[in-house]
């Protein structure tokens, strides 16, 4: 049973436009959310995160929005660039869990930004 879901396996966007990647979760105990970017044959690299006490976090071209009532978060990339083409993973954690702070990942969305 997947607690974190990314329902769009792929997304194609024109360079310069906005990319919106979505993520849904079911576990209400999650209180910290992260987005990772992954290129082929490399490990995931941290992109941006948000705590459940916030509803928005912005870092340059990247903004993450959190809607706790809907258990939904999204990553906005604007403007999109060809170098943003990668697989994006949404992840969630329960910071109060003493069992080791594991991350629960979604299945990823492949973003393709066309020049």
């Amino acid at each position, binding site marked *: 049973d997947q607690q974190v879901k990314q329902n769009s396996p792929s997304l194609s966007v024109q360079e310069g436009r906005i990319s919106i990647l979505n993520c849904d979760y079911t576990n209400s105990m999650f209180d910290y959310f992260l987005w990772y970017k992954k290129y082929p044959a*490399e490990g995931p690299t941290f992109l941006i995160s948000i705590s459940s006490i916030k509803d928005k976090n912005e870092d340059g071209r990247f903004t993450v929005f959190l809607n706790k009532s809907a258990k939904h978060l999204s990553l906005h990339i604007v403007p999109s660039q060809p170098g943003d083409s990668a697989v994006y993973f949404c992840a969630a954690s329960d910071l109060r869990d003493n069992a080791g702070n594991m991350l629960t990942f979604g299945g990823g969305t492949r973003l393709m930004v066309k020049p």
Partner: protein
Amino acid sequence: DTAVSQTPKYLVTQMGNDKSIKCEQNLGHDTMYWYKQDSKKFLKIMFSYNNKELIINETVPNRFSPKSPDKAHLNLHINSLELGDSAVYFCASSQDGAYGYTFGSGTRLTVV
């Protein structure tokens, strides 16, 4: 280079063999992890070690045995490899729990 490094990057082996994947981090992190990315591309935690102590063991077969000789190393030994073990295995480390997770570049294991 400060990083999480794992070796080998690719590993092809026959069913029934025993193999090990090594992981080292020079970030000074206290916690290290092994994640498995299956054929459906989901990344799932297998083990978590904090200062050489096992913290998480997520329903992983006994054939998988992590070993942490010190807090900078977390190796994964797999006995009696099966076809279903074929996956990409990622090592990771963090200092403050979910903050600052850093992943290695992965080991693609193919069992034939």
